[in-house]
């Protein structure tokens, strides 16, 4: 069976009892074609595969003939009877393959939205998110599976979540290792004097980056003058000579072999680069000045390298490399980061890619050309003499401060206005009185109390009783010290089940409201049906909230109703808006015929 299509003889039956129309069944990736042998019979069939939802078939060994039953999304089905089971098997496998290909779309109940094409990876991501977040999962279960929201709508508000998850997947680029390459130790086989160095492209790249001279040498010598193997052998021979600290031997070897000398000499590219860098250093920085108290200019100043102290030898300067130089170079390369993005397979390609990236950066560097003039400019900038400069006045905005009393006086009037008319009345009386009068009356009341003394009894028993009643009432409603401990929330005092229910209602209400408000203004019929769906779902929440209120013990009922009130308000606002919008719509549609008439 080829991948593209399959052709078999079969009988097409509209029902199981139908004897069937004999013909040829041809399936391609897109459609199913059935052509009856008798061109006059009515059983011709041409169905596109995307309408096919699933397949059923009879088992071999059962006493039924080999039938394949393809169900379409209108719950209709096409039944084919094959001549034998192997034909059935072929067709079954083919259909299975095609269905799996278009799987995500046809398996989901949301096929009505053809714009939703989901890759398997995306699906996986969603499933993973749902698994990780149980709250999300319950929401998903509640709304998507019950049909209030579609899958796409549900995830549309969580794009961020999906994006973040997707972003996590982008691979981080690896930089150079911070370990130095000098740490590559040769492995000896113990019998001969031969040592073996294991080189990976990774290490080679690092060697090239840190030692431009080696890089250059590689590009010139390999493979014209010597093989890659010879090249690296020479390189490690040079390295070995370095590690023996025998600069005399190194000098001797270098004299004999000019290629080897390349590795042994100071790296001239590096030297020129560092000279160029020094030229760009801030000219006012005097590096000589502190040389006296700095001993780093002494080579290696007691740092061990490869377990032994490096000894300074003044002769053969040319063939000496210090640890400090190596460390500095290595640090510079690591900090620069990796510029090459090649697959590390072939040494040659690595070398070339590195050369290319170097070239790019050097052309960039040259563009800031005339260094000496820039240097002069820098000097004058850095050594600015303040006394000679024009006065530098910073732009200042003068602070202008209004007298806030204007505001607060009007604020007071505002408060009085809103506080009610009862006070407004007394305020009027107060204003009409002169201060003399009021002070007089106040003094009078003092003389009254002086004359008659304290009241006896101070409080009548019935009044005291009233006071106790009122206090008990008010304290018992706020029995559990609300506000005493700000960390302790009201929710914590509720039974766990009710707390969870309340929280769940909050999240589901928020989810519904988010979708509800985001679908306004209603421009398409799709949004219209969505809003209707959401409104229905929201109206179902009311009785549930009432139920919660009824189920709590009486001492908590007040708290719970306080918590439920904002939910009610939010839902009320949404439904009010919905109804107002509906009314507007019906008015508009009512007016239109009149207008046209």
């Amino acid at each position, binding site marked *: 069976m080829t991948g593209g299509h399959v052709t078999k003889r079969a009988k097409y039956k509209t029902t199981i009892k139908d004897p069937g129309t004999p013909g040829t069944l041809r399936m391609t990736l897109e459609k199913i074609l059935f052509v009856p042998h008798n061109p006059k019979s009515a059983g011709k069939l041409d169905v596109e595969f995307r309408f096919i939802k699933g397949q059923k078939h009879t088992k071999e060994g059962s006493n039924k003939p080999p039938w394949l039953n393809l169900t379409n999304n209108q719950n209709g089905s096409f039944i084919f009877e094959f001549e034998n089971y192997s034909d059935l098997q072929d067709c079954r496998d083919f259909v299975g393959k095609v269905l799996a290909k278009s799987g995500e779309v046809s398996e989901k109940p949301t096929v009505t939205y053809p714009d939703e094409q989901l890759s398997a990876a995306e699906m996986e991501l969603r499933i993973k998110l749902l698994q990780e977040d149980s709250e999300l999962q319950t929401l998903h279960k509640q709304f998507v599976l019950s049909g209030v929201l579609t899958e796409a709508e549900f995830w549309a508000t969580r794009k961020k979540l999906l994006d973040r998850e997707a972003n996590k997947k982008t691979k981080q680029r690896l930089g150079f290792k911070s370990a130095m390459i000098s740490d590559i130790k040769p492995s000896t086989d113990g019998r001969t004097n031969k040592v073996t160095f294991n080189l990976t492209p990774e290490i080679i790249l690092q060697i090239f980056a840190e030692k431009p001279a080696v890089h250059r040498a590689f590009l010139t010598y390999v493979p014209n003058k010597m093989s890659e193997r010879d090249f690296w052998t020479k390189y490690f021979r040079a390295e070995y000579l370095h590690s023996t600290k025998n600069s005399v031997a190194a000098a001797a070897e270098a004299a004999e072999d000019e290629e080897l000398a390349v590795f042994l000499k100071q790296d001239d590219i590096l030297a020129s680069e560092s000279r160029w860098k020094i030229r760009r250093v801030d000219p006012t920085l005097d590096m000589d000045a502190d040389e006296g108290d700095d001993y780093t200019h002494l080579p290696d100043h007691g740092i061990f390298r490869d377990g032994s102290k490096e000894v300074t030898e003044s002769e053969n300067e040319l063939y000496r490399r210090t640890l400090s130089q190596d460390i500095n170079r290595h640090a510079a390369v690591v900090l620069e980061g990796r510029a090459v993005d090649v697959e590390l397979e072939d040494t040659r390609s690595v070398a070339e890619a590195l050369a290319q990236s170097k070239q790019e950066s050097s052309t960039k560097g040259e563009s800031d050309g005339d260094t000496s003039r820039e240097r002069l400019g820098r000097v004058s900038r850095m050594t600015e003499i303040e006394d000679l400069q024009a006065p530098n006045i910073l732009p200042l*905005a*003068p*602070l*202008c*401060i*209004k007298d*806030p*009393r204007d*505001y*607060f*006086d009007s604020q*007071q009037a*505002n*408060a*009085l206005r809103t*506080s*009610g008319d*009862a*006070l407004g009345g*007394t*305020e009027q*009386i*107060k204003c009409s*009185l002169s*201060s*003399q*009068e*009021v*002070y007089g*009356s*106040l*003094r009078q*009341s*003092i*003389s*009254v*109390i*002086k004359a008659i*003394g*304290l*009241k006896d009894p*101070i*409080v*009548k028993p019935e*009044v*005291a009783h*009233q*006071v*106790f009643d*009122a*206090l008990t009432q*008010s*304290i018992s409603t*706020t*029995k559990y*010290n*609300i*506000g*005493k401990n700000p960390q302790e929330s009201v929710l914590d005092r509720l039974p766990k089940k009710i707390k969870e229910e309340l929280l769940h209602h909050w999240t589901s209400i928020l989810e519904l409201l988010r979708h509800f408000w985001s679908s306004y203004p209603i421009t398409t019929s799709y949004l219209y049906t969505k809003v209707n769906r959401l409104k229905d779902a929201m109206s179902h929440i009311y009785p549930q909230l009432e139920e919660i209120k009824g189920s709590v013990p009486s001492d908590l009922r007040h708290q719970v109703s*306080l918590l439920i009130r904002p939910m009610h308000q939010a839902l009320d606002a949404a439904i009010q808006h919905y109804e107002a919008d509906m009314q507007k719509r019906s008015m508009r549609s009512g007016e239109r015929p009149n207008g046209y008439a």
Partner: protein
Amino acid sequence: MASAPSKLYADDVSLVVVLVDTNPFFWRASSLSFSQFLSHVLAFLNAILTLNQLNQVVVIATGYNSCNYIFDSSSDLNQSFENGRMPVMCSSLLQKLEEFLIKDEQLSKEVPEGRIKSSLLSGSLSMALCYIQRVFRSGALHPHPRILCLQGSPDGPEQYVLFNILSVIYSFLLWLLDSNKGFLLFRYVAIMNAIFSAQRSMVPIDSCYMGAQNSAFLQQASYITGGVHHKPQHLDGLFQYLMTIFATDLHSRSFLHLPKPVGVDFRASCFCHKNTIDMGYICSVCLSIFCKHHKKCSTCGSVFGQAQSEAASASDKKRKTPET
């Protein structure tokens, strides 16, 4: 002050500083007459002094134009009865109160018409705190101080400033205490420092409000300092309220269920339209509150950066909701 070091102050010894509102405009209009009010308060003060031998009571009159100490139980120690009608303590208090009122009236000659009839609560609060500070410095052992405001007149303008600042500060988790950004408004509200010193020195401000509308300021002051705020429903039972709620010492309070506010409204009003808002913008220089984004602060004139405004608008919008 006679604070003898030999006195053994237990944890239930209190120093109660009572701030009595003597705003004549309020008392003229109040349903509870001033003489009735005084008899309730005097009985209450007497009760506090008898609750514990070492208890101490200081009374400060909060007048319309001035404030002053009118009674200090540590200096008026004559407990004997005079003509059988009331204790010497009460008559001396009344005497001082009368003198205070006369002085207060003399100060009130040139009052601009239409001024808000509020009393100088800020002044008396500061005096109370000064007194308490003196007690704190008198030695390691001292009675536990608390302040009780018996207030009737409406919140004054400076209390509105305070109210707004308190709201801001509460939502900014008191960062203002450590910065001097609010100095511009502090010029107008010296009282601010009083509240914070009360909070810092753990002096609770209890408040009993007898006016018509509840005082948002006192509610907040009590809430922040951990005191009790109550607005009695039956003013003729004021003594009962005072005894039930405010008489107990701070130590015993931890064992009692005292009335707690159901919710404290921390919302502030914006400076531009004077609306009460629960979300808004705040000037980073002077803490003025606005209900929408402005290019320039109308109070201090600071120009807000344009570049950040987009990014900042999201983060600057602090939500302030009434606590329930």
